[in-house]
């Protein structure tokens, strides 16, 4: 038995305080969402570095990526990373704002291997470009599909899916 769930139990306040202290200037807007999630914001430029350090953190150690969701916010896009800490048995929800004109962010596949398919899904559905991704293809829709359906301004046209 190597891995234990919750081997380093900490209160939510302590985790939030720890993140604020160790990631000062990198994680903004840190707040607690009861019962078990810390929500924070990060800029796309710093994401890759922050992700690597979040994973390697000795006390909290967010080692597993649970999922990534792309969200269309109207004026901008958002990439939401939901990561899990085995040590403290809590989650971190990391929101990254991306400009609508150029929705690009560095890939985190190098940090969390699970990000591979989740980033592909987010690209497929919302059209967020994960630069440096090893294989950024569509995953749920067909290769020749046009557009990104979960964008709020997406209009479904027959020519978007030529094979139907």
């Amino acid at each position, binding site marked *: 038995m190597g*891995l234990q*769930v919750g081997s380093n139990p900490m209160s939510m306040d302590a985790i939030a305080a720890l993140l604020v202290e160790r990631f000062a200037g990198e994680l903004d807007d840190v707040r607690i969402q009861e019962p078990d999630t810390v929500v924070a914001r990060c800029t796309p430029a710093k994401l890759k570095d922050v992700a690597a350090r979040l994973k390697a953190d000795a006390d909290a150690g967010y080692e*597993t990526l*649970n999922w990534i969701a792309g969200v269309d916010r109207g004026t901008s896009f958002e990439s939401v990373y939901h990561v899990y800490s085995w040590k403290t*048995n809590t989650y971190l*929800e990391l929101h990254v704002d991306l400009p609508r004109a150029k929705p690009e962010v560095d890939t985190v596949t190098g940090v969390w291997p699970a990000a591979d398919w989740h980033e592909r899904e987010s690209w497929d559905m919302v059209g967020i470009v994960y630069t440096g991704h090893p294989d950024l293809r569509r995953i*749920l829709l*067909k290769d020749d599909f046009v557009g990104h359906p979960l964008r709020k301004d997406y209009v479904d046209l027959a020519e978007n899916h030529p094979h139907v």
Partner: protein
Amino acid sequence: MYDQFETPEPDEAVKLALRRIEESTARGEGSDVDGLAFNEVVVNMGPQHPSTHGVLRLVVTLDGELVKDVIPVIGYLHRCKEKLAEKRTYFQYIPIVDRTEYLASINCEWAYVMTVEKLAGMQVTRRAEFIRVITGELMRIASHLVAVGTFTADLSPLGTAMVFYMFRDREIILDLMEELTGARMMFNYYRFGGVRYDLPDGWVEKCRDFLKMFPKKIKEYEALVDTNAVFLQRTQAKGVITQQDVVDYGITGPNARASGIDLDLRRTRPYSVYPELDFEVITAQHGDIFDRYRCRMDEMRESLKIIEQCLDMLPKGPVQLGSLRAPYVITPPPGSAYVGQENPRGEYGTYIESDGSRYPYRLKYRDPCFCNLQLFPKLLSGNKIADAVAISGSIDLVLGGIDR
């Protein structure tokens, strides 16, 4: 007219497989038999292959019988469920959640309903919580029966008998559920703040009959395969998921627990009335195919224990909050919530963002099979193709959940 001799243009996945072969040949890798530069063949498995249990397509690169590389292709069952959420009210969306992972649809409903309840700050009546646990655990047994049954059917002729026995006994659970909800698989039963109907007269007795009968059946299944030499040879020490894989790829459910990790959301992140119930988190040591099979069998026993306790503790009272009718229109305050739930296959969760209107602004599924499938290229490579079938069966994929 369709030309049957026309060679179709390879799609992106096949092109990728061919490109990887070229790259490995250029690096001088690959076996070199009889002076052949490479003898790898790209084989398309699925999407209509019986052992993929659904419309999963695997583009497999074979070197003789050895699997060199696997590229899963998914999306054949994509039904735009996340898009559909944009134009449905929270209430109208419940039956659509059923159809994501159809073998354990009540557990999917549970995750969705819990998320909305968390967003809207709603309470659930106590009797409804117990009914939720009972139905959820019944469907866990039904789902494990299908999982183990179809998996053993892939392995040996003996399993073909097994799958019939298991479907026969699953029928009893589906009958119970039909009596309770009116549907056999697509229940549409959970409501925000409760469940749709109370238990009908005599249902508890019928359920107890099932609980009394079923342990004997589990022994029967185990007698069929547990000591079978063919079964053991094909399952032991094959397709090992290490603890590092679990951490890297977010593997959950019996697949993670078979590797010796006590990750069970019913324990680690208790919801509903699970904290009051006494049950064990089943784990195994090796993380191979056999351990995953064992975990599922033992989990069925634990589920029986849970149901029995719930039937004993079942309180009286309403099954729906407030009036007899469910709240049809709810408008959660702006915000987001994510709730994970222990589905038979792992952590099934929904992430919902609300903008304060009657419709979800963004709904996203976290599906356990999607995450488990991501491990396939790593898990299958280096095995024989026949073992690849056994391994993929033991992971227990439901394509409805993966493709959404």
